[in-house]
């Protein structure tokens, strides 16, 4: 690249000297012009000749060669040199830009681990992560990348997950914790047992995804490659026509003048600006998103996201934490503590989430010797003897069945009624908590112009409508079985405009059919979940639904940049073509329409990579 720059500078200086100083000798001037032309453009001419021999015409080299040599032939020496000079500057800039974007991609790819410290007996051997097998023991020292997914067996440390999640706060891990490849071990030494081969590890999956992302092209990209295919031949044909026909038909028209116009056409005929800058914008957008912990599987999904009208959410694990917690304890005749204690003991044999949350709220060891005669009544609850008393804990059906009068007023969440020796003792409500991030997510999405926000859930209608109300969702469909979710989604498609898109957000574990059916399937909390990465089009690595709004902003910004580039580049090119055909502008304008536009479009598409403030 440096060599190229030297050639441009030398040729440029020579060109300026030749133009400024009056040698008084036209031949010397021509020789100097030719010399600077050769210095800057010999490789283009050579490539053009080689390509013609190979039977490939109409490439950029050929077009530039014809345009510049043509300019020499009609006596426009300075133009000939300047076109080549600027063309080379443009090329240099392009390769610089490509180099730079490749590097920023490489830094994204920097999560690729180079080696693993494999434990063999008492020795540590540095091996390729590829060679490590499931069950092997590896050691990760401070500052090293975690090479494969595994479970910590000893040691504790802080782990930087920012490369995967965009989350800057380090996470603490110790024995028993899962560690994911691609994270960086900050301080301690940890020994881990490998749980996945390299190919199956998180880091490989993510790298694969980013590398393949641009194979799914957006409509704008497809449009531009199709446009480029026809644009160059059409412009070249018009140029040929301009050079020959008008001088023959119009009286007083000179060949030189019309050839000059035709040559301007050739200079503008290169589609580089578009072909490079549009995919570059999308690539930047996808790269920028992944820095924020949002993996987009293709430019098409990034494009579609900006057109989303209906956003459908799963409830549990997506908008809510998916962890059940005791919300309210309403005793009758006994104390709160007693009620909770009895309920926790009665339910202690069950591994249902309700039982877990009761035990958690109780917070004390369950003394199994106090419990006897546990009998589960499916669909109703439990009957058990605790401290010699018969305790019933379950839903209202259980109370009805046992003929116990129970509280029937308003209650939120899942309710556990408790009766002791056939006497009503009160109720406990258990509910899932809304994520702290959810209200912000809904607000941000609303301001991102999502027309409808819908929640689908298998949970009860009362729980669902409470969550929906709290978050301000537009519609809610509760008590749905997995098949029911797909049916509802089908129904929702009819609410959107033909061009609008419908996105579904789920946790990716049991939502695979719905994720697949939606225009855009978004999986949350994808970090470490293969199912999510497989099934979704967009994976949010963290648990925050507000990242969806961030992704939409990135999508909109990327599209805006892409459209700006399309309109700007095509607009300038067409304008200059028309002006050149009419003979109003000089070849200088044509140079700008080629090189200037390319540079501006590329600089513009670089903006897509910058997502810091989104």
């Amino acid at each position, binding site marked *: 690249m440096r060599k190229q720059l030297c050639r441009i500078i030398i040729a440029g200086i020579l060109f300026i000297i030749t133009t400024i100083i009056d040698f008084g000798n036209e031949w010397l001037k021509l020789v100097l012009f030719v010399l600077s032309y050769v210095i800057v453009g010999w490789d283009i001419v050579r490539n053009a000749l080689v390509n013609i021999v190979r039977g490939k015409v109409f490439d*950029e080299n050929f077009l530039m060669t014809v345009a510049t040599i043509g300019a020499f032939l009609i006596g426009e020496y300075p133009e000939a040199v300047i076109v080549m000079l600027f063309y080379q500057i443009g090329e240099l800039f392009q390769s610089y830009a490509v180099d730079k974007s490749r590097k920023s991609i490489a830094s994204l790819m920097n999560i690729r681990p180079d080696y693993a410290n494999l434990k063999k007996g008492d020795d540590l051997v540095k091996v390729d992560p590829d060679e490590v097998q499931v069950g092997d023991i590896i050691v990760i020292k401070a500052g090293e990348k975690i090479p494969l997914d595994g479970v910590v067996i000893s040691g504790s440390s802080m782990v930087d997950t920012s490369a995967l999640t965009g989350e800057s706060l380090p996470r603490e891990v110790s024995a028993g914790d899962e560690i994911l490849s691609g994270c960086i071990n900050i301080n301690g030494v940890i020994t881990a047992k490998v749980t996945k081969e390299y190919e199956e590890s998180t880091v490989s999956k993510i790298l694969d995804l980013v*590398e393949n992302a641009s194979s799914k092209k957006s409509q704008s990209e497809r449009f531009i*490659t199709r446009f*480029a295919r026809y644009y160059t031949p059409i412009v070249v044909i018009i140029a040929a026509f301009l050079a020959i026909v008008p001088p023959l038909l119009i009286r007083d028209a000179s060949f030189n003048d019309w050839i000059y116009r035709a040559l301007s056409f050739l200079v503008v005929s290169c589609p580089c600006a578009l*072909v490079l800058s549009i995919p570059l914008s999308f690539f930047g957008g996808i790269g920028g998103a992944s820095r924020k912990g949002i993996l987009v599987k293709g430019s098409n999904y990034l494009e579609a996201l900006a057109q989303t009208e209906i956003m459908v959410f799963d409830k549990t694990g997506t908008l809510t934490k998916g962890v059940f917690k005791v919300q309210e304890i309403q005793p009758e005749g006994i104390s709160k503590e007693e009620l909770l204690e009895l309920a926790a003991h009665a339910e202690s044999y069950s591994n249902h989430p309700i039982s877990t949350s009761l035990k958690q709220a109780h917070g004390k060891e369950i003394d199994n010797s106090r419990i006897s005669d546990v009998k589960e009544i499916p669909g109703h609850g439990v009957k058990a003897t605790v401290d010699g008393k018969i305790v019933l804990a379950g839903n209202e059906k259980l109370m009805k069945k046992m003929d116990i009068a129970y509280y029937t007023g308003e209650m939120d969440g899942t309710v556990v009624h408790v009766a002791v020796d056939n006497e009503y003792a009160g109720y406990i409500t258990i509910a899932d908590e809304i994520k702290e991030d959810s209200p912000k997510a809904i607000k941000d999405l609303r301001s991102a112009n999502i027309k409808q926000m819908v929640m689908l859930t298998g949970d009860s209608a009362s729980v669902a409508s409470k969550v929906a109300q709290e978050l301000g969702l537009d519609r809610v469909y509760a008590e749905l079985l997995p098949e029911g979710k797909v049916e509802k989604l089908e129904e929702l498609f009819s609410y959107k405009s033909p061009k609008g898109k419908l996105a579904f957000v789920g946790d990716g574990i049991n939502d695979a059919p719905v994720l697949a059916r939606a225009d855009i399937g978004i999986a949350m909390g994808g970090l470490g979940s293969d199912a999510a990465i497989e099934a979704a089009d967009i994976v949010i690595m963290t648990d925050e639904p507000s990242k969806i709004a961030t992704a939409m902003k990135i999508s909109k910004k990327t599209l805006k940049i892409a459209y700006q580039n399309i309109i700007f580049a095509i607009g300038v090119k067409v304008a200059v073509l028309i002006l050149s055909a009419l003979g109003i502008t000089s070849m200088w304008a044509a140079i700008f329409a080629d090189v200037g536009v390319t540079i501006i479009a590329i600089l513009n598409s670089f903006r897509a990579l910058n997502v810091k403030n989104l």
Partner: protein
Amino acid sequence: MKKKFILEGIDCANCAAKMERAINKIDGVKKATVNFFTSRLIIEGEDEKMPTIIQEAEKIIKKIEPQVVMKKV
């Protein structure tokens, strides 16, 4: 079968598009993509035709950009 290659030295986005178009037309290719930015070529094609597909693809690449070297990942 899916095969991945690195196209070393590819430096023209339009050429990448041309390569992609031409490789997709080779007999037995289901889908081929050329990613200009990561310099990757991914060919998805019928197993038994893969050797000829790779040969053909290499010819196409050499014709469009002679300096490009096609390497296995």
